[in-house]
């Protein structure tokens, strides 16, 4: 994008009327509240098979239970990549295996949200809303956490800076709520600017939904342009004006681009600090495979996103925690069609320079028939909320009271897991 267009977008932000709000607002700085800590939440939609991503290869029941979906021992051809002598990573995650030894990867196993049924859509809703009831509230826990960090209001100095960032089209539930968040998605369309946007904004005066969305969207666009430094590959060359074909931006980012761009947006000194993004392809009812197949493909994409996220963040990686979560696990036994059906407990990952990693957190329930949840799923022995609370508390500095009251309310909200963050 040309500097002139950029200026016009920025000009518009000023004209959208934040000035009055700014004057009335105490000048709380995000930078002071949050520091430079970054947090990325990656939601694996569809239900990741934890027993395939992080195999308990030394469990005596593992091989017989998993049958043809069992992964081999670390010393066998195509075997798992050992973590601690009991668990091993799926070889499709080979690129992040060294992070474990570096102390920058932590695995939590036999983890679940409080949800105990098997609907994707309810399970994802509960994972994101942070309560104990699907559709219990229309806001997401990460948005409420941002609110607790002072992100509920636009602060003064950097008008339009938003702490949260939704990567991709639309804002996922986990980031929806009263705290304004930025969003970013690639688009090859010509960008509306200046005068035209002023006219549209005037038309939206009586439509708060569209007006607020437009304003927030322009703020993010401006932020993204700045953070990405008008990268030639990511911008239009204005070719439409003279009738020539525009330079294409890729509409569907490949995983590496997705991770890298997210990392760069977060690395920007004045950019967002907390991002959420989705990865699809985890609902492996058929052709799941072991080291090849649908699940290995999805794990490979996850691995690419993480590696490129680290590259995009650069030095900021040392201040970053990435949490990788999914709505539920899958059946412990293969189903009849070379896959697995919807289950309960699964694995979760914490990665990043700020993570006190190099360990597997698990109160391992075992895989004997009578240890399985309802005789079919890996039994949950730790609550995903406890992990997320640990990160929010130690990494982002939320206090325990706010976590229990506002971020993860509801009966039996578990205590935060301490010591997840490097000190």
């Amino acid at each position, binding site marked *: 994008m040309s500097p002139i267009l950029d200026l016009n977008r920025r000009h518009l932000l000023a004209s959208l009327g934040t000035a009055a709000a700014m004057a009335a607002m105490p000048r709380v700085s995000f930078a002071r509240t949050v520091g430079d800590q970054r947090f990325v939440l990656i939601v694996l939609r569809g239900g990741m098979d934890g027993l395939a991503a992080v195999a308990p290869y030394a469990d005596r029941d593992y091989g017989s239970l998993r049958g043809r979906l069992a992964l081999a021992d670390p010393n066998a051809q195509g075997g798992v990549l050992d973590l601690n002598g009991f668990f091993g990573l799926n070889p499709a995650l080979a690129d992040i295996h060294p992070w474990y030894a570096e102390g920058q990867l932590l695995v939590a196993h036999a983890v679940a949200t409080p949800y105990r049924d098997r609907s994707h*859509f309810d399970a994802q809703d509960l994972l994101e809303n942070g309560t104990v009831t699907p559709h219990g509230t229309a806001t997401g826990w990460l948005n409420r956490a941002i609110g607790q960090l002072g992100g509920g209001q636009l602060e003064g100095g950097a008008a339009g800076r938003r702490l949260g960032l939704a990567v991709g089209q639309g*804002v996922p539930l986990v980031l929806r709520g009263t705290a304004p968040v930025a969003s970013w998605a690639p688009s090859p369309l010509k960008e509306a600017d200046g005068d035209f946007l002023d006219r549209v904004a005037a*038309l939206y005066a009586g439509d708060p939904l*569209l007006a607020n969305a437009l304003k927030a*969207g322009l703020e993010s666009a401006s932020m993204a342009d700045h953070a990405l430094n008008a990268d030639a590959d990511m911008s239009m060359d204005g070719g439409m004006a003279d009738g020539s074909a525009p330079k*294409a931006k890729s509409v569907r980012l490949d995983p590496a681009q997705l991770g890298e761009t997210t990392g760069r947006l977060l690395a920007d000194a004045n950019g967002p600090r907390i991002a959420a993004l989705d990865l699809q392809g985890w609902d492996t009812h*058929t052709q799941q495979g072991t080291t090849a197949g649908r699940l290995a493909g999805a794990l490979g994409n996850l691995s690419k996103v993480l590696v490129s996220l680290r590259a995009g963040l650069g030095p900021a990686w040392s201040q970053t925690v990435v949490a990788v979560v999914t709505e539920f696990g899958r059946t412990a036994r293969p189903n*009849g*069609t070379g896959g697995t*059906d919807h289950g309960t407990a699964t694995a979760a990952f914490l990665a990043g320079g700020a993570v006190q990693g190099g360990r597997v957190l698990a109160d391992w329930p075992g895989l004997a028939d009578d240890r399985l949840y309802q005789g079919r799923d890996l039994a949950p022995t730790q609550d995903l909320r406890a992990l997320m609370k640990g990160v929010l508390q130690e990494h982002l500095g939320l206090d325990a009271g706010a976590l229990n009251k506002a971020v993860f309310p509801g009966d039996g909200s578990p205590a935060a897991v301490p010591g997840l963050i490097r000190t």
Partner: protein
Amino acid sequence: MTLQAATLQAATLQAAIATNRFGLGARPGDITAAQSDPRGWLEAQLAQTGTPPELRGLDSSATRLDATYAARKEKDEEARKPLRDALREAYRDDAARRTRAAIATDAPLRERLVHFWSNHFTVSVSRPIVAAAVVPYETEAIRPHVTGRFADLLLAVTRHPVMLNYLDNAVSAGPDSPAAIRRQRGLNENLGRELLELHTLGVDGGYSQTDVRELARILTGWSVAAERDRDTGTFLFRANLHEPGDKVLLGQRYGEDGIGEGLLALQRLARHPATARHIATKLARHFIADAPPPAAVAALEKSYRDSDGDLGEVTRTLLRLDAAWAPEQRKVKTPTELVISTARALHGTVHGSEMGHGSETGGDGGPPTGHADPTVRSLALLGQMPFAAPSPAGWPDQAADWAGPEAVVQRVDWALTVGEKLGDGIDPRQIAEQALGPLASDATRQAVSRAPSAADGLALLISAPEFQRR
């Protein structure tokens, strides 16, 4: 104002609502055509059951599945590529034809219902095995039944090879079936679950994990003829996959009856009160508001029960609800609705195929984002490529899912692009009048007429709240 003038004004408003909320957006002349009897204009469409000309002569799903299986079987990479390319091209061509049908139709309510039910019973190109057959699926299983009985629609969908492949039932084997015992195959509960959760009872419909499993057992054997079978790509009941013995679904016993068990279960599910509530809620949410008034849901629910799930009757009940005709435009258009209504507004004014603009980028095995057809390209750009819903739940139907910050900016950018492409030589004031009629606010009329160029005027019209909503 005279009484006569006031009556005319009210009728024009109702006509604008009929074309925009219940239809797919007004073409020039539509509001005038609907004006004398807006509800009658819609009701008449319910009887127009013919296949739109754009979709006539479409390949059957069996043909497409057969070609898909053949491409899979081809081991030679060089020989396989053209087969795969042809399948992808077939899907893109179908998607364009379906979109053109929606733009050109004289029965937009009926077409909207096709889209609605197609989304309710989503299949997606995210599963390559069905990708080339998604539009034929709609034409065969959905289109003939949108004003018929829900039970017939449910059966047509559930026994359709594309659904059976999409939700894995085609390969599901009863644990004690001959095939399972011989070849170590077994049950897949994907279709059983989504049938209860998404297609019939709804997630709060009062079923358990046991019911999911029992329905999956009941449906074992509902499969698709493979390459080695006759009539490849058509429905095939495979008795050797069917789980023998009794099943108990929702407290009711199903004695061993092969395919008959599934037929009976679908009949009962279609009649279940939870299904009536689920369908009523989804319809009210689609046509009235994201959070529909409970009285409207109750009226639709009653209509469904009283008519034994006659969807034509339920639709007529909807058209008689005052809440459905409220002037406030409470629904934000989905990208599909926005693109199609834009093309309809410009119908006959500009060459429709010029609309929109994008680039051929193609995914790596994902849904294609580029297409020669500009409307389809626009859909891809705005995030709603036909039959590319991210999950079996289909596309969301609420503003929160489509009017996020990034999306609204993108819609405005898209409007500007359309304006620049097509605004030359048109009169945007006239388009506004023909597309929105009395729905257009003074502010919008003024902005359109004061725009510095026809391109900007058109772009402002498309961006305006009255056009972004319905």
